[in-house]
Each structure stands twice: as structure tokens, then as C-alpha cells.
């Protein structure tokens, strides 16, 4: 029951910690640099975070030597999270943005209506 405890000894843990600290330094440093666009910075930050997470999962959480079932559970939770992110993203990215003709102009004209009940919204308030 404790084979993993022997296979990854203290030295591996120290190396992992050092790697994690270095990566933290890199990600903080990278946040001061402009990589061209906001999304580029975010992607770099997320990639570094993912590397850090993999290190923690593989070495601190022993997934490298553990029963593969546990790794399957861990990875499938991430896959389902991916599904959860992907579909709303598809939806939001591909929604029609309807701006009817002249609507914005009309909205400005109608702006003072906010003070009084608007005729467009009559009755039953």
C-alpha cells in the first residue's frame, strides 16, 4: 500500500517545489510584459499554471505511480469541465448580435423616459 511513498522520495519533492517556485516567478514576471494582446498574456499565464498543476498532481499527489483509476477520475473531471466551458462559449461566440436599424438613436430619444413611466411600458406597473 505504500509503494509510492518509497518511489518518490524527499529529493523528488524538493525538486518539484523548486520548479514550482521558479514557475511562479516566471508567471509573475510575464505578467509585467505585454505580449501583444490581453488574450496572449492570459494564455501564457494559463499554460504556466497548467504546468504547475501537472507537477503538483504528478508528484505531490502521486498520480505518477498511483492506481491509474485515480488519474482517470482526475482527468475526466477536467474533460467534463472542458465540455462545460466549451458549449456556452460556442453559444456566446456565435450568437447573432442584433442591432435593429435606428434603435440606438431611438434609445437616446427615449432616455429621459426613465424618469417617468414610458408609454412603451404602459399600464400595470
Amino acid at each position: 500500500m505504500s509503494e509510492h511513498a518509497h518511489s518518490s522520495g524527499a529529493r523528488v519533492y524538493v525538486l518539484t517545489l523548486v520548479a514550482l517556485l521558479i514557475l511562479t516567478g516566471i508567471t509573475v514576471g510575464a505578467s509585467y510584459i505585454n505580449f501583444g494582446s490581453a488574450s496572449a498574456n492570459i494564455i501564457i499565464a494559463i499554460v504556466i499554471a497548467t504546468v504547475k498543476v501537472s507537477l503538483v498532481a504528478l508528484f505531490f499527489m502521486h498520480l505518477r505511480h498511483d492506481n491509474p483509476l485515480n488519474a482517470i477520475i482526475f482527468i475526466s473531471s477536467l474533460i467534463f469541465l472542458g465540455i462545460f466551458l466549451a458549449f456556452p462559449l460556442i453559444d456566446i461566440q456565435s450568437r447573432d448580435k442584433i442591432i435593429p436599424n435606428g434603435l440606438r438613436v431611438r434609445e437616446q430619444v427615449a432616455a429621459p423616459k426613465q424618469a417617468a413611466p414610458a408609454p412603451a411600458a404602459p399600464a400595470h406597473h
Partner: protein
Amino acid sequence: MADIVATPKSQSHGDHYDVDYLNDGSLLSWLTTVDHKKLGVMYLWSILFMFFLGGVFALLVRLELMNPGQTIMTAEQYNKAFTLHGAIMVFLVIIPSIPAALGNFALPLMLGAKDVAFPRLNLLSFWIYVTGAIIATVAMVTGGVDTGWTFYTPYSTTTDGPVALMTFAAFVLGFSSILTGVNFVATVHKLRAPGMGWFKMPLFVWGIYATAIIQVLATPVLAITLLLLIFERLFGVGVFDPKLGGDPVLFQHFFWFYSHPAVYIMILPGMAIISEVIPTMSQKVFFGYKATAFSSVAIAIVSFVVWGHHMFTSGQSQLAGAIFSFLTFLVGIPSAIKVFNWITTMYKGSISLAAPMLYALMFLILFGIGGLTGIFLGTMSVDIHLHDTYFVVAHFHYVMMGSTLIAFLAGLHFWWPKMFGRMYNERAAQIAAFFVFIGFNATFLPQFLLGSRGMPRRYYDYLPEFTPLHQVSTVGSWLLGLGFVIMAGYLFASLRKKMDAPSNPWHARTLDWQTSSPPITHNFHEIPVLKQGPYDYFKPFEPSVEGYHE
């Protein structure tokens, strides 16, 4: 019918070891028991009580709809009544019904285990369920909630009433469901009896396993959705409120990411029971065992990518709608496979028409209607017309009630002798089944027609042209109620008898029947060692528990 001959191999266990679980320990000790059977029975009573409550709300709703205009209550009261009916039935009855009550009781027995993997977690899960039920009750008596069980924003964030409390109740109940799921996955993986490979597991276990996977992966999202909703009400964060820049459609994505798989949390255990009852009552080997087992898991996984079919008219993008529509159709295939496998299993069997089988056959017909009408709703152009009408109401009642609840009744009648050691009156069971079947169809068949003719759902009042169909539906609901009253009558009556149930009244081959009725506290005297597949009715019975014979 032979009784169990369960002479203990070793007398060292002492008397306590041989007492049936029902009579082991004081009544008070039940409250802190970690025995999966007792917890199953406690869940059963709680769920039946909640079913009664939800049923009363259902009858009130139907009574109000007897005539157009105000019949017995005001619009506000009606809105609260249907919300409570939905919330109670979904969160407190159907989702826990089969896994928590029958699953808790039967799953470890079927695996040949002494208990679930984490008995104390099981107890915790039960008390979380009770806590959730109490919070929901508090929300009901402190004003009630009128959001509908779906809690759609921004209505739910702006309406009065203890919405946050009701939401919190659902949040708490979610944890009960998660813990049950964790427990069952671990149990199935780690506590199978020696010799029980994955494809020697009873199909009930497969179904509950697939359900547990969904419970583990989907319910946390419900938890966070409801938490965000509570934040929204308390702090006005605005994620789902367009006035603050949020997106109400996003709430629907969050909600249905859980709630569509939740439909399968409801139906998969029902299918699981039918997969158990049909081969047993037909004394036939299960046709297409592997296909059925895999289709459970396939349904569980595909169920995560179809939620958008609840949102074809919601303002979701057309591309997303098309993807969801296509995937929705795919989920129909494993269901079709299951139906044909069940039917073929009966072919050339030796079929008993005892109560569990009556309900199983009823399930086949009602699930047939529920599943086939789902095809209409998956078709985009037709769904645009049918969405949010009574057609949808009828469809999901055929699936949730006509299928899951009927399967629950099949399972209840199937395991009742094992749970309580008593046989119920078979004739009374037939009469009740008749009323349930007639009443159910009278209630919900007219609603398909109402829906296709354009009657929207959640209407307190309606146009006069819909009156006759609504009246048929209301009368049907009373017949259905009558069926349940008869059922309560003969089930309670059976509990007053002395224990008369044989250990294996249905001549089943699974391990749960190879112990006494009711089982002893530790389920089996010896660890069962599997000798036979669960449905090997084509060869003589070879018990897997030593000392057991029919």
C-alpha cells in the same frame, strides 16, 4: 418455495450476528445506524412521505385547472403550488428515490458486500438529505417560492419570497446526492464479491454505477449554480442579471449542465430496475447484456453534451442549437437498444405476471411513449412550436413519473419481501396497478394534444377551448391518486403480518436473494464466491453463498 437454510458456519459470531437487520437494535439506534439496509429503509420512508407531499401539490394544481379562471386558488398560490410540486418531486423524491432508497438497500447485497464503501458517509448523506428537506419545508411554510423548480433568472433573483432559502435547500440536497454517488462508485469498484468481474455484475449495479458517475460529475455544477444564484440575490453580483451586465441565458447553461444529466440520474436507475425485474420474472438470460451495460455508461456520458435542447428558443445561438439537437438524437439510440433488449429478453421466457412484472411491462409502454415523444422535441423546427407547452409537460411526466417512478414501484414490489420479510396482497397490487396505469394515461395523454394545440405550460388560467382536455386530465389525476391510496393500503397491511416472505420469492439468481428475508445484519454469513452469472436461467441454479439452497 424453499426457505433459506442459513446455518452459520461459525457459532463464534454470537446471536447478534444472526438477527435480521430490522430487529437488530432499538428504534433510536436506527438514527445513527451505518447499516446500508437501515439507511435504505429510512430513505424509503422519507421519500414516500415527500412523494405524498408532492402528490398533494400535484392534485391541487390539477384541481385548479379543472376549469378556466379561478377554481380553488389564486394565481400566486397556483404558482407556488406548481413550484413546490416540481421542486419536491425532482430534488426530494425522484433523484434520491431509486439510488438512495433501493440502491442503498440492494447494491451491497447484489455485490456480495457487507456494506457500502463508506458507511459513515452514507449516514451523513442521509442526514444531509433530511436537513435539505427541513430547509425546503421551512421555505415552504415561510411564504413559499414561485420561481418554478428551474429557478430561471432574472425572475428568481427579483421575485419576493424565500427563494434563497429554497435554493439553499436544493444546494444541500445536492451534497447528499454527491456523497451517495461517491459512495456507490467506490463500492462498485472495490467491494465486488470474489469472482464477480465487471460483466458478471447484475445490470442494476451497472445502472446505479452509471448514475453515480453523473451524480459525481454533474451535481457540483448545480451546487455552484445555486450558490451563484444566492450570491446574486444577496449581493446583486449580476452574473445572470442583464441590468447589471449579466446574461440570463448563461444561467440556463449552468442550470441545464446539471439538470439535463439529472434527467438521467432519474431515468438510469429506473432502467436498471427494469433490467433486473424482466429477466428474473421471465427466468431468461438477459438478451444483450453487454450492450445494455455499455449503453448505461454511454447514456451517462452523452447526457452531458445535450443540455442545450432545453434552450432552442432561449436565445442560444443557432449553431449551438444545431449541435445540441444532433447530439440529442444520438442519446436516443442507447435507449432504443435497451428497450429492444428488454423485450427480447422476454422471448421464450417463463414469464410470471406478479406485481413487479406488471409494473415493468407498464414501464415499457410508458417509457415507449416518453422516449418516442422525445424525438419530436429533439427536432428543432417542431420543438420551437412545442417548447414550453403541455407537450413538454406530458413528455417529461412520461419519462420521470411514467418511467422512473413506475420503475421505482416495480423495484419496490420486487424487493419489498426482501426488505421487510413480508409478501403483500397480490390481488390488491393488481388493482392498484390498474388504477395507476389508467389514471396516469388519462392524466398525461391529453396533455400531448393540449401542447400541440398550443397550450403553454405553467398557466393558471386558460382559453375555454382547452377545457375538455384539462378536465379529462384532472379526472385522470384522481384515478392515479386512488391507485396510490390502494397501494399504500396493501403495503402497510403487509407490514402488520408476521414475516412470511421466502428468501427468494422470484427465483432470482443474483446475490441479494441468497440470504434470508429480511437479510441478517451483516448480509451474508460467509463471503459469497460467485459461481454463476446473474441471469444464467438456462442452467440449474448454483448458489454462490455456501449453505444456501432453494
